[in-house]
């Protein structure tokens, strides 16, 4: 595989391979928490942080522990355990030492443990054989892309409160339709860069 510039991966992860809008990962908290711009920005930051952290840890564990023992097939369970432990550890630290950050961001951390975008990034990193630097770029980029999508959605949903939406479509229904439209719009970026 030709070496892709980490910057390309970074931008691709935000725009053309957006976790939500082209992979549809992490939908659960995307739909549940996208009601207010402020809270969704908080969740987005938390996701970005955890994504970057877990990608680094999982990269190291995968390449220095699983590969030498040829235990690659264990990556699912190992990644999941690491993510869960990492999130919990971060939550404890933030709660203790950064109370302000905890109130704006920390309460979302338990939600992220089971966010499939996080596991998705770790697995993509392995499947696409990224190098260490590429993985970090991919982690940060994916997090920012996820944040961009959820904040955009929250902005739209704040406007939607004033719109006459048919009863059956209110809430998750209209959110999913808008997500689809946003995904279509993001296809417009696909000519810029493409990673697989």
């Amino acid at each position: 595989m030709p070496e892709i510039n980490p910057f390309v991966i970074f931008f691709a992860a935000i725009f053309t391979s957006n976790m939500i809008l082209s992979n549809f990962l992490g939908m659960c908290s995307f739909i549940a928490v996208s009601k207010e711009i402020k809270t969704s920005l908080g969740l987005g930051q938390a996701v970005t942080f955890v994504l970057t952290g877990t990608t680094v840890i999982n990269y190291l564990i995968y390449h220095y522990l699983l590969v030498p023992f040829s235990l690659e097939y264990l990556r699912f369970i190992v990644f999941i355990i690491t993510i869960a432990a990492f999130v919990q550890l971060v939550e404890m630290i933030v709660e203790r030492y950064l109370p302000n950050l905890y109130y704006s961001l920390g309460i979302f951390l338990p939600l992220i443990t089971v966010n499939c975008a996080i596991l998705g990034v770790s697995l993509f990193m392995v499947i696409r054989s990224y190098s260490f630097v590429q993985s970090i770029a991919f982690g940060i980029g994916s997090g920012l892309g996820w944040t961009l999508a959820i904040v955009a959605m929250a902005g739209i949903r704040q406007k939607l409160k004033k719109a006459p939406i048919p009863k059956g479509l209110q809430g998750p229904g209209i959110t999913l339709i808008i997500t689809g439209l946003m995904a279509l719009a993001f296809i417009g970026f696909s000519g810029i860069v493409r990673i697989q």
Partner: protein
Amino acid sequence: MTNIWITVAVITGIATVLALLLTLADAFIADYGERRIKINKEKELVVEGGSTLLSSLVSNQLFIPSACGGKGSCGYCKCKVNSGGGPVLATELSYLSESDIKNNVRLSCQVKVKEDMEIEVPEELFNVKQFKAAVEISKDVTPKIKFLRLKITDGQEIKFKAGQYIQLIAPPYPGNQEEVYRAYSLASYTGNLSFIDLVIGYVEGGLLTTYVHKHLSVGDNVAFNGPYGDFYLQDTDAEVVLVAVGTGMAPILSILYELKNKGINRKATFFFGARTIDDLFMLEEMSMFERELPNFKFIPTLSKPQPEDNWQGEVGRVTDAMQKHLKADSNQEAYLCGSAPMINSTVEMLKKKGIPEDKIYYDKFD
């Protein structure tokens, strides 16, 4: 074979390292040391920081009511946190009104004790205690309603106001694996400090009612905590209008004992609704009250009297009987106890009759 060992070793190794990290973090990072909680500016508790306010208070014998056990899904455990509670959390928002937030009201099961705090709880919660008791009397007063007398066995005394309730605790029993508690109104006289009376109906599939009706017999040990509630007889001279259906009679009984035993001479009328004559109970007590209280009248009404009952009294719902017998007066207070539909329709009727809403007190069953 080696492969299996390596796999197990690697997974165990990773899990051990992570478990160790988390345990260390829990011991050192999540250790908030001793914190002080000042309650109502007078009482002070010293607690181990890090757990929720609710569990810290309960472990110090201050029983804040909580129906969901601290899951943040009932909204009963509200209390005022004046300092040290941090900002309102997203998990509390759906249970707090705007005025709650302005008044520093929080859900004590969500607020964690991380620094010294100042809180306010209703004064009567200091009276709330956990009691151990034994069943002294258990009798069926109707086919579906049991009368229970619980004698307090741990030497404590219960002080309550006529109309308040306790939470009875059912331990795990065959068919139910976890401890549950439910609220029941006290039916006994407030002057009886060593026992309580409860009136408990049987609900198909109800966890606590099944326990009481199928598993509890005389001599058994039980536990309860209380008293709770702001439904109690007010200290005024207004005429008392009492309305209840079924087991809603319990707090009304306590109110009637209060009137009789304390020689309070207020005009009182008790409208009681049941289905058939078999569902009426405590009739001897009622005629005793009618004898002893010069201004008391008991008006039972049956919604479905059977032909063989040969019922001479009122027929219909309690609201029908009230429509007929209740004379509106500006100096009246109403005390209602029963199911939500009954309370709602009765409140509507009383308002139409001209009793102001703030003089209507009720205890609604869920």
